[in-house]
């Protein structure tokens, strides 16, 4: 028996009938064609599926679509505004924070959660904040630099993360 959900994703309201067992990541990718959240390990370890639910980073492979009824979800597609990359995305570009790119959307969403709560994190704090995100290219050094770049940019421009 399907259930009706209403959820605001990247500022746009969606109303859908979903099966209770449908995972959020498949709802985003298959029902809405928002393919930024990736299915990596599918066991809530790798973090490639990370999205924000009411501003908090959550693994969408371990969340049911019915659980986000009535919430605000942000995916990586919701960060760029009017064709301009979000400072976190620009940071990954400037500091070469991606190689194959598979983990990147999850890394960026975890960074968004971090920078909302801690606008000026130390390198150690950034590394701890990324404990739930794996990069199999082992590009962590540049990922940390990318987030430092974004933190500086956001502070210089006095901009909110979301």
């Amino acid at each position, binding site marked *: 028996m399907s*259930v009706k959900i209403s959820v605001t994703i990247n500022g746009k309201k969606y109303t859908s009938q979903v099966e209770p067992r449908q995972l959020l990541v498949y709802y985003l990718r298959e029902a809405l064609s928002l393919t930024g959240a990736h299915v990596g390990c599918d*066991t*809530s370890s790798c973090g490639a599926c990370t999205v924000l639910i009411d501003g908090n*980073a959550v693994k969408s492979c371990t969340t*049911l679509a019915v659980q986000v009824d009535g919430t605000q979800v942000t995916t990586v597609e919701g960060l760029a505004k009017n064709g301009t990359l979000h400072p976190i995305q620009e940071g990954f570009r400037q500091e070469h924070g991606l190689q194959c790119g598979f983990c990147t959307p999850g890394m960026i969403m975890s960074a968004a959660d971090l920078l909302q709560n801690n606008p000026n994190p130390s390198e150690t704090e950034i590394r701890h904040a990324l404990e739930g995100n794996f990069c199999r290219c082992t590009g962590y050094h540049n990922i940390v630099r990318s987030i430092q770049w974004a933190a500086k940019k956001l502070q210089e421009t006095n901009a909110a993360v979301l």
Partner: protein
Amino acid sequence: MIPANFEYHRAGSVDEALSLLATHDGNAKVLSGGHSLIPALKLRLNQPAALVDIARIAALRYIRQDGNHIAIGAASTHKDIATSALLAQHLSMMPQAAGMIGDPQVRNVGTIGGSIAHADPAADWPGVLLAADAEIVLQSASGKRSLAAQDFFLGFFTTALAEGELVTEIRIPIPAAGTKSTYQKFSQPASRFAIVGCAAVVQVSNGTCSHVRVAFNGVSDSCFRDGNVEKALEGKAATAENIAAAAAQAAQGVSILSDHYAAEDYRTHLAQVFAKRALSAVAG
């Protein structure tokens, strides 16, 4: 991986949740953060007929002082506990342990009630609650009862939680002034579950240790309080020699887990190392 079909019900209150659980007569599972349950559903280790979602019951999400206890609502997230000033003031191992669970994404939604109801032997809360002398409050359609943590955790993924019962609150006695607590763990690098986790609570007054509590996660098929270590330090001077001698008693007389992360002898060694680290942090 896709779970088998189930019905979904979002409960607006504890009473509604209990009534839904009673209606399904043992065939419903409680959903909160879902970070223990959803992986089990995906692997089809569990195929309940229905899920009862309690995550939005505001009356189950609080951390407050209640007389000489701190009361924690079962739907409090690990993040809520990690950032609790009240717990940091009275029993710092609680926020410390909360901050070591999984990763930020897990801590944002995973709950203390869900973790203890699941009772994974490598989870962090069970041993911490044993060392804290916590009581677990359980509620069903027929009433409420309270169990000491020692009587709640029965074994490998097994608790005293009955069909139709819900964990509603965790109650922690506020320790006497001068009591220190810590949680030290050696974690599996991907999941961050405990290979060995050691919780320790000690009151040191005039250089003497009392109220010694030492409990482990990850070492055996269930969390356990280590009476040998506790007895070895209780009433003794808080010296490095006494701490080392007590820690050397760790994990004796229990069956030790052995897996591809840590063989039995290595896990036993780690239990001794982490008991020493934990006791040094609170009594050193």
